[in-house]
């Protein structure tokens, strides 16, 4: 695992107006790593993810991905051009909290649109590939349905497949289960776990501490725009070095415990 990193980010900075959201982030991700990114809301973790495929243009810092290196400094010679950004995005898939499927296209049309228009794949090949992917997630018979006729969990799995159809080298997941009803979270997480098992490189911004612990190979804790902790999930989650992470975990886990425990009837005194 000593190969060169798939993506190498140095001193990434991003401000919205006077508010600095990312205060110099440096992260390397190697191929096959599954990185869970956790942190309180407002800690910058989503902005970090959106800077990687430059949906947000960082204000400073560099990023090396494959054979290209970008320098985001204003006026820098290697600032990405529109064309380079499109090329970058064909190699980085992204899945959003609110699915963002295109409502006027069927499931199949959603999946084949970018491969045909952006990668110039022949239509027949794109369809064959899309149908294989949809069969894998058990939604083959829904291929002619419109997104509005699917459950949230199904829509999110289609959104994942739509990104996979571009055969990306890296997948970004931005709180992809946060908008789902609790009973639909599992189907999306298990698809992500299956992807991880196949060796897909993934950056996963999540509140699902269970997913971070069980599936990810590395956990990064964001706190007020900096990487506060970075290491194997068992170490970072079980044995947090900082008070901030300890407090954060306590808060997050407490919420989950409360949810899990709620339906269980209280035991009467003297039992057990």
């Amino acid at each position, binding site marked *: 695992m000593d190969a060169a990193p798939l993506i190498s980010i140095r001193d990434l900075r991003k401000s919205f107006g006077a508010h600095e959201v990312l205060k110099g982030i440096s992260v390397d991700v190697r191929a096959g790593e599954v990185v869970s990114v956790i942190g309180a809301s407002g800690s910058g973790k989503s902005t970090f993810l959106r800077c990687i495929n430059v949906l947000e243009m960082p204000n400073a810092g560099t990023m090396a991905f494959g054979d290209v290196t970008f320098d985001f400094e204003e006026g820098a010679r290697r600032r990405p051009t529109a064309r380079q950004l499109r090329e970058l995005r064909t190699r980085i898939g992204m899945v959003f909290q609110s699915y963002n499927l295109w409502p006027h296209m069927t499931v199949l049309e959603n999946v084949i649109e970018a491969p045909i*228009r952006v990668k110039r794949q022949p239509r027949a090949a794109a369809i064959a590939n899309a149908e294989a992917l949809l069969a894998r997630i058990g939604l083959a018979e829904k291929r002619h349905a419109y997104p509005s006729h699917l459950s949230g969990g199904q829509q999110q799995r289609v959104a994942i497949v739509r990104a996979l159809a571009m055969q990306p080298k890296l997948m970004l997941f931005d709180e992809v289960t946060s908008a789902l009803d609790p009973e639909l979270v599992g189907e999306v997480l298990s698809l992500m776990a299956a992807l991880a098992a196949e060796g897909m490189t993934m950056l996963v911004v999540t509140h699902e501490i269970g997913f971070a612990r069980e599936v990810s190979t590395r956990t990064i804790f964001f706190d007020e725009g900096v990487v506060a902790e970075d290491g194997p999930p068992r170490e970072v989650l079980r044995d947090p070095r900082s008070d901030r992470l300890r407090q954060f975990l306590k808060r997050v886990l407490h919420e989950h415990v409360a949810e899990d425990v709620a339906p269980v009837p209280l035991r009467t005194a003297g039992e057990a």
Partner: protein
Amino acid sequence: MTIAAWWEGFAPYVPGFLSASWLVFVISVLAIVVSWICGLVAALAKSSRFAAFRQASAFYIWFIRGTPTLIQIFIVYFGLPQLGLRMSPFVAGVLALGFNGGAYIAEIVRAGLSAIPKGQMESSAALGMSRFQIMSRIILPQVFRIILPPVTNEAITMLKNTSLLSTITVVELTLYSQTIIATTFRPFEFYIATAVIYLVMTTVLSQFAMRLERHYGRYA
């Protein structure tokens, strides 16, 4: 009066009504084309990075919506010649109605664009699509479906507004029926007949729009 006698009085004017109706149709189509050009330019200008464009667009929409259509027609036909810009009644009419409709189209298009969630743009960009591809394949088809009902209303308004051009000597349906009535002294029959012709045209238009709406609404 028997039906036969009534028809005898009416029949000589049928060709005239038909050609006047055709003129209404032609003026409406041309004015709608002009209004879409003005409307799209104004909608783009209103979301421009340059303040001057935004202000010009805001002024245009403010002026058009705040003044009577008839006065706008008079300004173009009677007012502009004073500045050396002389036009035939037909051209003046098409332009005046087009400018007028453009302000409303601009607002409709802007509202339609802002109704599309930002995530639609982002998920498309994240797949490497170009701005043009995102607009033409993802955003505009959705906008079109949203704005179809108000755009239909606008087309119907345009068709009815052509009657205002009777005041600047365009012999469309309204002015034609007025001239007949001046010689036949039968305002009731001829104004009813004129109303029915407008009604037929607007009904065909809204039926057509309803069919389109059903076609594009299939994914909802």
